[in-house]
């Protein structure tokens, strides 16, 4: 089980980074999503892998629980990453519609730009 999770994190990370290194905005967004999965699973897994022991307290008998803290952190991370993805998508869309070009590299600056007088 540990090997499966670890290898899945590795593959998701690699795929995410590969796509982030592409030159168009859409693959970069896809890559960010994959990397988000990888990071979330990574953080979650720091609580170690436990099956059938959700952190829902049982009032009637003593049972084992998994670590709740990484879960709480990851829960908000998932929601925030939605917000981040939405902003990035919007920036990419606005940039594409404004220039009809979805390349991520900035065009070369014209001579003299950025001079302060």
């Amino acid at each position, binding site marked *: 089980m*540990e*090997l*499966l999770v*670890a*290898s899945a*994190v*590795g*593959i998701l*990370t*690699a795929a995410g*980074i*590969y*796509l982030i*290194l*592409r*030159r*168009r905005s*859409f*693959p970069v967004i*896809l890559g960010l*999503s*994959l990397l988000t999965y990888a990071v*979330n*699973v990574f953080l*979650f897994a*720091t*609580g*170690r*892998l436990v*099956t059938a022991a959700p952190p*829902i*307290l049982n009032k009637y008998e003593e049972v084992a*629980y*998994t*670590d*709740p*803290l990484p*879960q*709480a952190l*990851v*829960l*908000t991370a*998932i*929601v*925030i*990453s*939605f917000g*981040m*993805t*939405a902003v990035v*998508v*919007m920036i990419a*869309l*606005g940039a*594409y*519609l*404004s220039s009809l070009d*979805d390349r991520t*590299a*900035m065009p070369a600056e014209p001579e003299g730009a950025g001079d302060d007088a």
Partner: protein
Amino acid sequence: MSLFLIAALPFLGAVFPALLIRAGRNAAASAAGLTTLLAFIGLMLHIPAVFRGETVYSAVDWLPALGLNAHFFLDGLGFLFAAMILGIGLLIILYARYYLSREDPMGQFYSYLLLFQGAMVGIVLSDNILLLLVFWELTSLSSFLLIGYWKHLPEGRQGARMALTVTGSGGLAMIAGMLMLGHIAGSYDLSVILQNKEAIQSSDLYLPALILILLGAFTKSAQFPFHFWLPHAMAAPTPVSAYLHSATMVKAGLFLMARLWPVLAGTPEWFYIVATTGLVTMLVGAVIALFKDDLKALLAFSTVSHLGLITMLLGFGTKIAAVAAVFHIINHATFKAALFMTAGIVDHEAGTRDIKRLGGLRHLMPVTFTIGTVAALSMAGIPPLNGFLSKEMMLEETAHTIWNGSHLIVPALATVAALFSAAYSFRFIAHVFLGPKREDYPGHPHDPNTGMWIGPAFLVLLVVLIGFASAKIAGPMVATAAGAVTGGGELPYYSLKLWHGLTPALYMSIAATIGGLTLLALHKPLQRVWNATPRPEAKTIFEALIGAFTRLSQAVTDGLHNGVLTRYAAIMVAFTVAVGYAAYRGGSLGTATREMQDPGLLPVVGWFALVVATLFIVAKHRNRLLALVLIGVVGLVVSMAFNYLSAPDLALTQISVEVVTIILMLLALNFMPKETPVETPALFRLRDGAISVVAGLGAGGLIYALLMRDFAFPTISDFHLANSYKGGGGTNVVNVILVDFRGYDTFGEIIVLGIAAMVIFALTEAVLGSKVRAYLLNRKPDLPQAGDAHPLMMVVATRVMMPLALMVAAYIFFRGHNLPGGGFIAGLIAAIAIIMQYMASGFAWATERQRYPYHAIIGSGVLIAAATGMGAWFNGMPFLTSDFGYIHWEPLEEFEWATAALFDLGVFLAVVGAVLLALESLSRFAWQPGMSTEHAMDINPARDEAAKTGTEG
């Protein structure tokens, strides 16, 4: 009054002028004046103690772990400077009230001035050298604001920038020097450092520390070769020049040298660096000053020269020279501030400060003439004024100084400098006030009103009084301050009086005065020679140097930041991997302590689906729609994995976020190219592949190593598990952590989410307000569109499902505290229920039925969460402390209420609002005229009939 309060008063007072300026200029000036006066009185209350030779302390610990503490102390030297800063500050505040015109923003001026004053008082009262450094930098910053006060003048801006660059870089060097000094002494408190003379002077770090500290002092006090910034800083309004550049800021460097005199002075290094720099500065400044036609430039270079004089005296390293230095500091402050104010009056009334256009003003401005003449004669060193006394002492000391074996060089050069000093002082009188009255003044010269001349008149009164009765008036002050400079002990015999007999100094003085008069007589031909001689222009050199630095940093920036974002990402990943590898090599990995768990069939199937989907995404990412579908597969497997691994809350969240994310990306993809072209050469793709594989191996290996080992430290989760029910009143520990234990974090998160949604809204507004709108309106869809945009089946199904979905959301919300669920998940589900209506029935239909703007929903969510948190205050508890209890209403079963549920309601609303605002914004891109239909279910048999007959007929 506590020293802490004296230093803090100007900072506190700086608020008032800016606020009170609406009540008028007098209100602003009075506020500044009263604050200063209060601090001044507070300082004067310490007179008895200080003159008894005691040291007053006042300490507040700030960052004791760093050795940075707000420790203040007041001895003779600190008292002298603080009295000068606050006393002359008062006169300047009065003077500036009448000097500044109606157009100048006076509130700002007094605020800056008080900030500067506070920083200066802080320097002279600090006991802690780190604190002193903070104040030191503050003087650089606030003087920048003051020099550049007339923002419309390019000279002002350039002068301010130059002053900041020079004094700021000096300050940086000084930080290093001070840290070394503190390191040697083992403490950052001056009172400790000053006791460690032997340890410091015998240390290997003595010379580097000395040079670095002196760099700070020399740049601040405009010593050669850093003197050039001071004349350019004269672009400031005259009150600023009079205050900063005669009495206070430029004296900060001298103060520091005097303060550290007991531990740094007395070595050959100190003598040769400090005394030589002072001597050269004194000479250079005096010579240049004679040939300046701008009154303020003349005074600026004369200030440079006098600062050099004091530096030289401190550099001599003898106690008697230190006494002379302290005495001259007092004298220079009195006559130079008066002269600057006189120059300001002349400029203000005659309309120019160009000496060539002035002359004969003695008839028109008798009061100003008297003040200016007395002050200038004191500067020239004419008896019986105070300038004569200290210059006499200085010349006397030079006569005993041996420089590199020569008895003659120091006294000779000092006499030459004194000669030039006399010459430019005489010129100030002769070419401005004496001579025939002229007809071509730009203004109408006349004496100013009392408010303007009373300040300089008071200073000139001091000039005369100190001259006649120096021992009575200045004697105790000089003795106390000099005692503090020399670090206690007996001062050598000296006497502050006019007649010392026929000493060498007297002959040197006479020579200087006669020579000065001769130079004045020969001024015209000399000026011609001076103008003809080529000499380096400091400003040009400085600007060339700064230009070179700018080009260098531009080149470095351009080299690193060439606009290719991919490259930045690659560098960051490679660097992170390298750091991780270094950590791996540097540390040691313990043996595995956990058993690998047997996965069983289901996880293997899930893993297989995830890996295949991921690899397909990478291989097929050019087909964007396909990649998006496959991302959905990955998200689904991840949420199932969460569920399998005992995280039902995460599974619920992940799956609902998945839905909205995919909808969002589909909406965006609608407007973007559907294919990604092949652009990157195969070699580059190989390189990117290598980087990502290595990074993936790193991440996977790290988590694998972690998973096979137990916690290295006891986890804090046990606390959460144990207290979730007792303290938070809920059995779902994850939810209790979110809304209770870590409620503050969650509060921040929903705010961030709300901000993200607002950003999306704002971006949409901006994009749709530009030319993009026309493009969108005329856009022809690049894919075939559905014949029926709102199919009957879907519309009916979603409308039936809407109440059901909202019911589920409510259920999930309410059970959240005890079972998987809660505000985040319920919010996402409710948002999806509403999005379904947008999708099925159309944007226009859904928008019509939306009663509350989503902004308001986000806002109310944040406000409810905040109000819940604040409710705890009424119970006398800290922000966001939750409360809960149980209610038993017959015939219902007992149920629980918790304030945390109210907080969760805030979370719910914020999430609903944020998700919907984001998606609604994106949908607005798709709007085209003619899209809105009256009926969402717009199957219209009549229309279809008409179309049919139309084609047939």
